[in-house]
């Protein structure tokens, strides 16, 4: 469903294009989550504390970004579509509507997967134009969304932000959402929307040629580094110091990354791969059912029943336990363990 209304030049000029781009934003944020979760869950319990902390903190921020994108879409009268087969990406695959310059996977925690994570979170450079389609960096994409929001809002009499009470009640607020590290921002105005985008981009890429994310500046939280730089600490096996810059790279203490204390999960598993092993297949299917139920839950939460989100928490725990159980089951005849396949399964 991605890209239906997006212009070839990557700019946004109409409300339909804007809604389409925001739906893409939701899909884009979501597409990174299975990737990060596989790496996170593949790390054996009690090891790699720094890596676990890093990936966990980043994946919950991606979840926040997904919900922020839903809030913006709801604010302009859209309807986030989350529980459709096409919503779930196929792995290996690309970031939705990107320039396809790299491949994202469902894979265990490894040097190779951290390489991919760095590409996902790579900060935009000023030389690249804002583009909602064919973008190279996520920053480029959101720049285009922000410009599009401003353009369409300015060129629509009365603006595009809904005044309808029922529609405004669809916003996810701090009452429903927590534990994301950042700030959940209910969106009612163009300023709120700008702030939500600044939060998404700021947490991911950082601000103004520093390694820090935007939460301290925007919300008075403790200093935290942006996603790219947190992953780079794992990549370089060295911590940043507060005085480091993007150019300097990390110059702080060395850290130990235990690349071997990881379940050897089969890369990009599919239910089809397990046809010969009915018991194992059933477990993978069971995981996917839970995952699909969770998507249903989030879909309904973002379409007028925000209270449901709290009930999703138990499903998220289920998902974790089921994923880790799979990673403890060898795939017969291979050197791999099974793993979650993140397929849409009703």
């Amino acid at each position: 469903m991605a890209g239906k209304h997006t212009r070839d030049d990557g700019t946004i000029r109409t409300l339909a294009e804007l809604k389409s781009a925001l739906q893409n934003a939701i899909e884009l944020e979501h597409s990174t989550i299975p990737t990060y979760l596989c790496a996170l869950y593949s790390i054996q319990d009690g090891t790699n504390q720094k890596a676990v902390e890093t990936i966990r903190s980043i994946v919950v921020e991606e979840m926040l970004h997904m919900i922020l994108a839903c809030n913006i879409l709801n604010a302009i009268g859209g309807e986030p579509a989350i529980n459709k087969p096409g919503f779930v990406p196929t792995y290996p695959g690309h970031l939705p509507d990107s320039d396809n310059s790299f491949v994202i996977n469902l894979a265990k925690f490894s040097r190779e997967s951290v390489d991919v994570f760095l590409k996902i979170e790579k900060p935009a450079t000023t030389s690249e134009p804002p583009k909602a389609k064919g973008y190279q960096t996520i920053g480029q994409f959101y720049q285009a969304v922000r410009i599009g929001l401003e353009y369409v809002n300015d060129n629509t009499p009365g603006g595009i932000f809904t005044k309808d009470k029922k529609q405004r009640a669809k916003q996810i607020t701090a009452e429903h959402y927590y534990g994301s590290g950042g700030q959940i921002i209910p969106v009612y105005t163009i300023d709120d929307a700008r702030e939500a985008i600044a939060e998404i981009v700021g947490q991911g890429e950082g601000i103004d040629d520093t390694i820090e994310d935007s939460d301290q500046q925007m919300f008075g939280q403790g200093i935290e580094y942006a996603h790219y730089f947190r992953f780079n600490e794992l990549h370089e096996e060295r911590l940043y110091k507060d005085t480091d810059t993007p150019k300097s790279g990390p110059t702080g203490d060395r850290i130990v990354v235990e690349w071997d204390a990881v379940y050897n999960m089969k890369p990009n598993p599919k239910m089809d791969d397990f046809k010969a092993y009915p018991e194992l297949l059933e477990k993978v299917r069971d995981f996917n059912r839970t995952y699909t139920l969770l998507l249903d839950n989030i879909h309904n939460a973002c379409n007028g029943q925000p209270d449901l989100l709290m009930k999703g928490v138990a499903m998220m725990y289920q998902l974790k336990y089921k994923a880790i159980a799979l990673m403890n089951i060898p795939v017969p005849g291979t050197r791999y363990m099974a793993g979650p396949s993140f397929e849409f399964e009703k």
Partner: protein
Amino acid sequence: MKTDHYDVVIAGSGIAGSLIAKTLTRAGKKVLLLEAGLQAGVALDSDGAYNNYMSYLDRFYNAAAKVPNSPYPILKDAPTSNVLDVVKLTPGGPPPPGYLVQMGPLPFASDAVRGPGGTMLHWLGTTLRMLPNDFKMKTVYNQAVDWPITADDLRPYYEMAELEIGVSGEVSEQTYPDTPAPKAYFGKDYVFPMHKIPQSYLDTEIAKGVQNMTVKLNKRQYKINCISTPQGRNSTPNAKYPYRDVIWNKAEKKLKLTGLLGEKYDYNPVPSIWDAYTGQRCEGNASCVPICPVQAKYNPLKTLKRSNFDHLTIITQAVASTINIDEKTKEVTGIVYKRYNNPDSPEYTTGVAAGKIYVLAANAIENAKILLASGAANSSDQVGRNLMDHMVMLTWGLTKEKIYPYRGPGSTTNIATFRDGPFRSEHAAWISPFDNWGWSWPVFSPGSDVSDGLAMGLFGKQLRDYLNERLTRQFLLHFECEQSPDPDNRVTIDHQYLDPLGNYKPIIHYYATDYMLKSMEAAKTVSDQIFAANGIEDHTVYNPVTDAGYVTYKGQGYTYRGAGHIVGTHRMGFNKHDSVVNHEQRTWDHPNLFLAGCGNMPTLGTSNPSLTMTALTFKAAEAILKQLEK
């Protein structure tokens, strides 16, 4: 060694010390905080805080007896009380081993944490306010003493405390005996920062039969009122809650509640001290006492972390011993502390912390000890006296239907009916929390149930069935009886009893007056009626041989336990003859010495004292700022 000169020197980093440090440093004052516990415990950076807290959790998981102090390091140089040391005393015999020198005739049954964050690391989290009559026991019931302040005086400070701790609860459900309706007592539009923690299944099942039932007590009839309990653990934010911070208003010379972020964002529950992804909601881990694994439950390190560290110096492993006093001006000139490198070695260096104003916030027993050791603040002869605790009588039984205990925080509902009433001129008031954790407190369930099953020769499915029938029906009721102040319940010191650093160990004299014993008799009558009316099979046993707190009254035996509420040893009052501190928590005898903590409370009321103590501490912080800016 003498330190730099600070605006304020504080001994103790529990909630009282941490709150004063935070409030003062954020108002630009230079503060030195002395802490007796280990350096590791004060780590507030992400990795340090996480690693230290995980070490507490490991210690808890590995402990054979999961008592309140089980997660926290035992330090020879900064020893503390432990409920495992509470044993039955022999009249005339030598005091048993342990930090508290228990002279009896009854044992004082509560403990404290001595380390960064203090005893609130293992508090349950109940945050009830005191009731209006609690502040005027003498006037209304001719018992104990009045406070020099009223519930109305304390209200703005209660509101600050409820923000600081982050209280979850429903104001509209807070209906108390002899107290104005919630809208009047709390203020028309007042709400807590977060909605209530959902009451447990057990609570709702029990309340079905108990709510509004009539019980008879001493020829009077009472209608039982079960209400949700406000608590200091994170829940869903209340969008109507307006406040974000407490700020020193220089012009008005007052602390004021303000909305820091404006109306735009809802109140955000304060997460764990190690990252913002953990602890924003209670997860029902059900180990609140002794330790919340995710820090959804408030602890004072959350407050300390919000200090302005440009103005704060913390010296850890520094045990406050005595205070120096200028004989002429009566001003305090320094706090003498002993600093150890290794908590198991008796070696130490002595330092003197110097400032303009001094605050002892080391807990009620430690504060009293330091004052007694220094001959300070005691012209009233009240230092160390009036030691109080809630004397907790437990009753337990098996319900007919399964109520599924062992889920959620320790207690989410209480019976408020006997918190106030004319009976207080005859015997103590009490509050009755429903307990969510089965019989774990009185008989160490579920381990003891497994032992019982094994002793009956059960194993396999039969054993599982036995446990399934028994554990799921365990009901426990508390009766937290308000101990009345008594000058003979007291802390003293003696050169015979010293710890490895040569500091005094507290000597405790403790007993239960008839006023207390009579309340246990009354509470048992109420319990019997509740159990009988609801078909709860009573399994309560008070054992005269093994129960340390076994007492008798009119031929019947009862057992009290400690509530961990150590209160009263340096009471607040109306003048220098009747008390140690005034209503601002300043000592009458020394113009620059403040005392903070539960020791200031003249009476205990039936609420857990932490919230009230926090409110009083805001009052102290305000008075200190006023004095500094004079």
